[in-house]
């Protein structure tokens, strides 16, 4: 119970910090609304070219775009300056290790808190505006109460997968001095594979089936498609199953790596 309280206070601190930047949030939301608008226009233009080849419904595509924009800051696969686990490189890990809390758990909680706080701030105005836009740009309501609940569930699971993945790669970097150039390439590849550039259904079929097996598809591609009812039934259950599988795998792998890293630091003296 005490451990929970500790984690909650980390969460609260980080959440408050995120709320501070109100101006940034407003102008950020404005930027994203315009961005989403342009994306929708581009998709519609392509649809005009060949409606038969279009793999999703218009409303599903539009919902995908808006939801992706809204939660974009939570699901990014790269770190920014404010990110919690930069301390591993700074050597601040020495301070972290002195505290009677699991390093991995603390980082995980702090990062998730930070992302939820920023995403909450950004997504509320964005989604509000998206609901009020004229058709066909409007964000449509979810395909039903069950899909909505599953959407929320898989969204949080997807956040977990994203953060677990980020931490995994970050701690991996601790062992191999991976220079920024390589990390950049890797991150952008992951971006593409998770459906951030274009939604996965737009990829050619063979490529798509392969991509859906990877952890990246479980980040936000899955929840967004469940929301609009684009993904239902057996394939949906399979997707959720894969998402849970990757969440557990990445968490365990990350924790193991973290323990190994701590060991290395203690043995080598940092």
């Amino acid at each position, binding site marked *: 119970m005490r451990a929970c309280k500790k984690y909650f206070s980390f969460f609260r601190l980080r959440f408050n910090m995120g709320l501070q930047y109100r101006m940034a949030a407003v102008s950020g939301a*404005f930027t994203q609304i315009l961005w989403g608008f342009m994306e929708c*226009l581009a998709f519609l233009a392509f649809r005009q070219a060949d409606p038969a080849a279009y793999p999703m419904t218009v409303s599903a595509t539009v919902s995908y775009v808006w939801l992706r924009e809204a939660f974009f800051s939570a699901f990014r696969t790269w770190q920014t300056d404010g990110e919690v686990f930069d301390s591993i490189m700074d050597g601040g890990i020495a301070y972290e290790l002195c505290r009677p809390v699991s390093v991995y758990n603390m980082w995980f909680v702090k990062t998730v808190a930070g992302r939820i706080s920023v995403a909450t701030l950004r997504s509320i105005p964005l989604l509000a505006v998206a609901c009020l836009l004229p058709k066909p740009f409007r964000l449509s309501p979810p395909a039903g109460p069950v899909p909505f609940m599953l959407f929320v569930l898989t969204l949080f699971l997807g956040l977990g997968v994203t953060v677990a993945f980020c931490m995994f790669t970050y701690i991996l970097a601790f062992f191999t001095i991976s*220079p920024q150039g390589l990390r*950049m390439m890797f991150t*952008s590849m992951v971006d*593409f594979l998770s459906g951030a550039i*274009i939604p996965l259904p737009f990829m050619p079929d063979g490529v798509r089936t392969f991509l859906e097996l990877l952890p990246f598809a479980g980040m936000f591609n899955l929840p967004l498609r469940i929301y609009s009812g684009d993904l239902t039934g057996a394939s949906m259950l399979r997707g959720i199953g894969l998402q849970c599988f990757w969440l557990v795998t990445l968490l365990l792998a990350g924790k193991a790596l973290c323990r190994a890293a701590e060991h290395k630091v203690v043995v080598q003296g940092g």
Partner: protein
Amino acid sequence: MITAERSGMTTKIKNSSRVYFHYITISLRSAMQYRVSFFLMVTGRFLVAFNGILGVYFMFSRFGHVKGYTFGEVLLCFSVIQMDFALAECIGGGFAMFSGIVRQGEFDRILLRPRSAVLQVLGSKFRIDRIGLILQALVMFAYGIAVSPVAWTTGRVMTLLFMLVGGTILFISFFWLRAAFTFFTLEGIEAFNILTYGAKEHGKYPIDIYGKKMLQICTYIIPYTLIQYYPLQYLLGRTDRWYYGLYPFGVAGIVLVCCAVWSFGMRHYQSAGS
């Protein structure tokens, strides 16, 4: 009297150019201190930049064409915008990173030197590492030329040049505008990212695919069509109006606006402190 003034002007320009190129030399030397990581960064960025074109490629492989444009034509448009942006980030990097410059107190030091603040900001943060993006744009561009059926004449080559120069200046101006607003608010400047990163991302398609309204907005409110759509029409042979190729010169107006906002901002900085 007049010749004395003019020679004063030319010596000033020569002097300032010398300082600017000296800055670039120092940037290069700084980068060479970390040779390996520099090279990896450049290569990394080079490869990363192909991400964008991958998305476009997959869309075209599914749909074949969009609003009458083929893949090659879009590639040409995309690569020009990409090149504009890469050059703008390289030359105007100081403006892009300006909030950092202010926050770290570097701008105070800039004010303590007897040179134009703009010259120092641009010179000191010349981003030589953007060369990766420039190269990538060149590769895309070469491929675009090979794949699209453009009938090259002197006029068309000049148009392309104007598109490049005008576009680069336009993007640098928007970075400049964002930097000027940093004087007033450190937080709210993200909206400017639409003008820069947004334009780069969505400018990959010719603006008319976004519809007539967007075309109007991008002509009268923010002059993107001057450096992309109109000259592009002439370039691709969709129109005979050769004067479309001169439209990029219109960005001079934006430059003046930025200059004014910047001066105002600097005065504000000096009275508000940091």
